[in-house]
């Protein structure tokens, strides 16, 4: 009896997990499937599961009607420079806030952690007006600049957690050998926390790539659009052409999927740290 109950339990577990997985994966497969259909096939009732012929040309059409290569270029510039800035400045700050004892450190750290609670809606308008006064809206600068000023409280917090885990003897030994903080940072702390930096870089890449409100507020001319904004523009103009819409959505997704494929382990590690030790 107990055995029957256990088998039933297992069966139920797998059934729910498989149903849940289908819920997660089918929308993505449906997107890919829809992106390679003709405009006739896509509207058939009942829906066809697979297209008769792979309409790869849909992707050409997307590139023809909107400059998606340009959007890619823009997104890559913004994401690349932001990731670089975040990696450099957030690790510098995390070092300063964890491995150097100095006056005011705790106050600064508390302020930065507190700013995590601040809704972006509160700072959005004054920040926009600041860039407007400096006459640098409709450029990538407002989107990239914050990354070069610590990159965000979350990343500093995450790296600080890693840095706190490094034994103090490491730097003490180096200091006795006459090293300064910059040397300890670049030669000791950075090399042993490379995985942590990978976590931060991946998160910041995904956040910047996925950001919608920032580009929406700051970029006016179409040739400066990011892929996320491009997709939105596309959906405004070609609202009924779902096969092209889905092809465009695939194009937005491809870099994210690539990053996910290579960095999944780091991403999961980072999320785990934020939630469990936070």
């Amino acid at each position, binding site marked *: 009896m107990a055995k029957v109950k256990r088998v039933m339990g297992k069966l139920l*577990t797998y059934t729910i*997990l498989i149903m*849940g*997985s289908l819920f*997660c*994966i089918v*929308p*993505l497969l*449906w*997107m890919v499937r829809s992106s390679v259909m003709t405009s006739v096939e896509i509207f058939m*009732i009942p*829906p066809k599961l697979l297209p008769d012929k792979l309409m790869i040309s849909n992707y050409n059409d997307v590139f023809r009607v909107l400059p998606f290569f340009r959007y890619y270029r823009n997104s890559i510039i913004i994401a690349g420079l932001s990731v670089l800035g975040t990696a450099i*400045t*957030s690790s*510098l700050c995390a070092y*300063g*806030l964890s491995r*150097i*004892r*100095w*006056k*005011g*450190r705790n106050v*600064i750290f508390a*302020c*930065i952690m507190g*700013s995590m*609670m*601040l*809704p972006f*809606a*509160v*700072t*959005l*308008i*004054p920040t926009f007006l600041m860039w407007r006064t400096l006459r640098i809206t409709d450029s990538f600068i407002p989107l990239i600049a*914050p990354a070069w*000023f*610590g990159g965000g409280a979350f990343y*500093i917090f995450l790296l600080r957690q890693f840095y706190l885990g490094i034994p103090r003897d490491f730097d003490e030994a180096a200091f006795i050998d006459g090293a*300064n*903080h910059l040397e300890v940072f670049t030669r000791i702390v950075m090399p042993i926390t490379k995985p942590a930096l990978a976590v931060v870089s991946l998160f910041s890449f995904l956040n910047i790539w*996925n950001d*919608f*409100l920032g580009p929406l*507020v700051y970029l006016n001319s179409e040739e400066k659009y990011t892929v*996320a*904004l491009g*997709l*939105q523009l596309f*959906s405004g103009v070609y609202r009924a052409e*779902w096969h092209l819409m889905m092809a465009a*959505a695939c194009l*937005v*997704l491809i870099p994210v999927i690539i990053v996910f494929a290579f960095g999944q382990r780091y*991403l*999961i590690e980072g*999320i*785990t740290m934020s939630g*469990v030790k936070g």
Partner: protein
Amino acid sequence: MKTKMKMSKKERRDNIAGFLFSLPCILGFIFFAALPMAVSLIMSFSNYSIIKESNFVGLENYIRLFSGLDIYFYKSLFVTILYVALSVPSSLIFAFSIATLLNQNVKGKGIFRTVFYLPSIIPVVAMSAIWMWIFNPDVGLANSILKQLGMPTNMWLSSEDTVIPTLVFMNLWTTGSTMVIFLAGMQDVPRQLLEAVDIDGGGGWKKMRHVIIPLMTPTIFYNLVMGIINGFQVFTQAYVTTQGGPNNASLFYVYYLYREAFSFMRMGNSCSIAWILFMIIMILTIILFKYQKKWVYYGGE
């Protein structure tokens, strides 16, 4: 005496080094958090607009908002609270359940975890496009399946009554990272405690009720707070899928704020709207922290 001098020299050097290392985020905090916050508060007492002359108006913005003269204020507040009230519990329960199942000895755990996590990294714009297509009332996948099963179809995002539940459902799709946090927390539950329940003859339910859930309360609390904070700030989904419609049924608070600021150029007023949001989030967080003593268990206390 000499060592003391040396110490203070090192201290001075550390003070300078610490400040310099932290300088980027100190400047970042000043220019992207503290100053904008202060300016936003000041602006909220003005009728600032970039297209016309502006003056200080005292509490006028707040009074008008709370008086209900601008019908959209309470509407957006209602829509957002409804969304938070539905989406936070549903996503927590969903993520917790999946994590519980994965925490058992299942084959292919890594694959399942990957599959459940994947949607949470999809850009919201793309996610919205995918679900708009699935929920298309005429030819979407959702209605086709319902039709096949002989069930009534639905207008989903195109009906006032179903737009919020549909967005709540879409939100379930992206709970993968919450699930990963829960799963990690569950893996930290000490084995001895679970075995103790086994020895006492307790089954899975007893383990859940008396060991796993109590030990998971800090993680649940964290996800609850983050869920509420994020839920109040939903913007992109509303902007992309419905533009606040139909008939303002999905006029999310931040979307309303965005519209005030960037469509109607009423920057002062939208700063008041932002500060009300900030206060709501603060008060809710404080209440949650106050009541956590009643149900959140921190080890070692």
